[in-house]
Each structure stands twice: as structure tokens, then as C-alpha cells.
């Protein structure tokens, strides 16, 4: 059996943290793009267009991320579509993230008082003009803090990708533990790794919340 020094362990964990960061970024950016599309679609006045989006959001919010990962990995495999752990993890996390972000952004738009719509409407602005000039600028401001806050959930969510064999921080920790049998040390270091990624995001979200709560000033 190989001997691992503390530095070996830390170095391997740090290297694998890259993949946690990459997966988080892809999930967050990809999820953001999908959520943006869904949010715009959800704004349609037609119920037949709104309904599928609502169903999508409920579906992904109401089931565990782990099941979504299993379905993306084993489920697609059983259907004859071979996907790598990479593809499955990315797909599941993007869908998961997009559902939550759609819900958050939708809520921010709905939080703008109806008087704003009416105020714009009586001045002659159309629906899209009102969205563009009146509603979205205000909703965006509301959305920033909870969006950054949710990114913490995405980072932690990537840990589940280890179960389908995606080698990131948690998976590397498991492998190191199998080799060294120092679970307490190793998983404490893994947890610390997530904390180092998440805590600055939390702090930043809190800072934004405070800053953007002051209405009026830009």
C-alpha cells in the first residue's frame, strides 16, 4: 500500500476541486441560460404556454437531485443512450439549477406591485415595453441576492455527482479514504474545501442584499 503524506492528500483534493468548480460553473451558467428562456416563456399571457413551464419547475423542485442524476445516468443508459458521468452530471445539474432559478426569477417579477404595470399601461407602454423599461430593471435588482445565494446550493449539489462516478472533490475524498483509512481527516478536508467555495458566495449574497435593499439610489 502506498503512503500518503498530508500534502499528498491536500494536493489531490485541491486538484479535484477544479472539477467541482467547473461543474458548478457549467451548472450555474447553463442553468441560468435555460432559466432565462423559461422565465421569458412563463411571462406569456397564455395559460397553455405557462403550464408546461410550471410543471417543469415543480417536477425538478419536487424530486431529489440524486434521483435526477440517477435518471440522467442509469435511466438514459437503460434507454440505450450511453452517457458519460460528465454528460449525465452536467445535464442533471443544469436542469435542476434552471428549475430553481426560474422559480426565483419568476417570484421577483411577481413581487413588483401591479401598480407599476398599470402606471406604465396608462402612459401607453405595451407589455414588452413595460417589461423592458419598468418591471425587469426592478426585478433584476431583487433577483441578484437570492440568485447568488442559490449558487451555494449548486456548489454543494455537485457533490452528488460523485455517486455516478464523476471525479470531483467528494469522489476524490472517497478514493483517498479508501487508500489511507483516515476518514475523519479526509472528509473534514473535503468539507473545508466546500466551505472555502461557498462561504465567500454567502458573504457576497448577504452584502448584495444589504446594498440593493436601498431603493432609489443606483
Amino acid at each position: 500500500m502506498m503512503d500518503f503524506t498530508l500534502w499528498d492528500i491536500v494536493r489531490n483534493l485541491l486538484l479535484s476541486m477544479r472539477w467541482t468548480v467547473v461543474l458548478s460553473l457549467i451548472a450555474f451558467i447553463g442553468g441560468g441560460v435555460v432559466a432565462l428562456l423559461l422565465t421569458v416563456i412563463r411571462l406569456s399571457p397564455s395559460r397553455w404556454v405557462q403550464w408546461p413551464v410550471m410543471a417543469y419547475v415543480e417536477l425538478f423542485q419536487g424530486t431529489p437531485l440524486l434521483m435526477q442524476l440517477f435518471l440522467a445516468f442509469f435511466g438514459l443508459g437503460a434507454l440505450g443512450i450511453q452517457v458519460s458521468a460528465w454528460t449525465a452530471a452536467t445535464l442533471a445539474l443544469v436542469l435542476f439549477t434552471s428549475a430553481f432559478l426560474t422559480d426565483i426569477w419568476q417570484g421577483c417579477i411577481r413581487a413588483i406591485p401591479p401598480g407599476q404595470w398599470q402606471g406604465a399601461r396608462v402612459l401607453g407602454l405595451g407589455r414588452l415595453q413595460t417589461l423592458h423599461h419598468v418591471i425587469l430593471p426592478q426585478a433584476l435588482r431583487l433577483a441578484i441576492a437570492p440568485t447568488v445565494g442559490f449558487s451555494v446550493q449548486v456548489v454543494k449539489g455537485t457533490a452528488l455527482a460523485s455517486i455516478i462516478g464523476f471525479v470531483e472533490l467528494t469522489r476524490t475524498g472517497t478514493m483517498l479514504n479508501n487508500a489511507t483509512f483516515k476518514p475523519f481527516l479526509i472528509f473534514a478536508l473535503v468539507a473545508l474545501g466546500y466551505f472555502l467555495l461557498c462561504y465567500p458566495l454567502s458573504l457576497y449574497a448577504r452584502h448584495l442584499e444589504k446594498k440593493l435593499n436601498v431603493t432609489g439610489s443606483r
Partner: protein
Amino acid sequence: MSLVRVDALHKSFGHLEVLKGIDLKVSAGEVVSIIGRSGSGKSTFLRCLNQLEQHDSGRIEINGQVLDANSMAPALLSENVGMVFQNFNLFPHKTVGENVMLAPMIVRGEREREASRLARRMLERVGLADRFDAWPEQLSGGQQQRVAIARALAMSPKVLLCDEITSALDPELVGDVLKVLEQLARDGMTLILVTHEMSFARDVGSRVVFMHQGRIHEQGDSREVLSQPRTPELQQFLSAVR
């Protein structure tokens, strides 16, 4: 010819019939005060006049144009009618000046410079020329309401609808807003107001319309109607508000 002409206007919310056939003609330059108990349908009626509420049946004609929210773009609907709300509904993410400039730029396609000049003129009219760069939240309620009036005026409406525009204000701020309205009336603007300010209705208004249970129950010259109400319902209402 009447500037505003309403025939047999009906409106229900579910099973509740709020407007049970309203007929009203308003000539240019008239100041019409709509009074009545809450629930009498006066706000709904006002909101039908710019199609914030769509009527179920009847006809609304303003400046020769028959209104129909189903087939008309907002720009066309609001072409002749402006509105000021009880809660101002200013855009909090825009400065006072930008609030007034927005519609002329977006709806009428004016350039920023023209719109800015127009906005300054309108703000001057309501006595707030010096607050062009302020944020709405930095203003008192009365000042915010005057900005809302300036914003509506910038689209040069033929009729200005005012929905209880002094009801959300502290008593000492009401006067400034009413003074602006008075000046507008003197300039010949056609005003239709839902209001509880009886002295304003009497002194500035040309006509009072008393609504009761979804109908126009009594109307006429404001001084006459307010000093010698004919129907017992209006007598009762007036003695309750005084």
C-alpha cells in the same frame, strides 16, 4: 360635441354587477367630480374610461374614438386619456425627470433632449422644476403625486382621470396637489375625478356626479347638487362625509 361619451356601460366582476348602465357626457374643459360611497362603482367606472378594466357591454367614446382594449394597443388607448392614481405608481428605479421622460421617449419616440425639455416644462407646471434629478423616494407624498401629474401631462392627454389622488396623502400635503389641479382646470384641461374633497368639487368642479349602487343616482351643477341634494341617498351621503 362631447369629448367623452359613455352609453349604457355595464361591468360585472363574477356575479357582482358593479356598473349597471352608466350614461355620461363630458364636454371639453369640464371638471367632473364623481362622488359616492365605497363600492358604488366610481373607481371601476373611472378605470373603464382608460380600459384598465374592460367593460362587458355599452360604449365608451373619447375624442371621437370608440375604446376597446381587445383590439387597441395601449399607446392608442392612452392617446387621449391620462390617469393619476391614489398611490402615485411612480417608477422607483428612475429619477423624477426620467419618470416624466419615459413615455414621450418610448411611446412617442422623442429624442432624449426633446423629452428632457418637455419633462422640465411639465415639472415646472406642477412646481417641481428643481427636483428633476431627485429620486421619487426622496420626495414627500404630495410631491410624488405632483410628479405623477406631470408624467401624465407629458403625454398631452385630452382628459385626465384622477382616482382619489389625495386619499393617500397627509392632510397638510393635500392642498398643494389640489392647487395644481385647480390650475389645470383653469388652463382648460378636462378632468374627471373620483374624490372625497367636497370643497374642491364645489369650488373648482363644474359638475358633480353622485354614484349609488352602480348607477348615476344624481348629477348636476356642483354648487347646486352639493348645497341642495334632491335624493335622500345623496343627502344621507353628504351629511355622512361632512
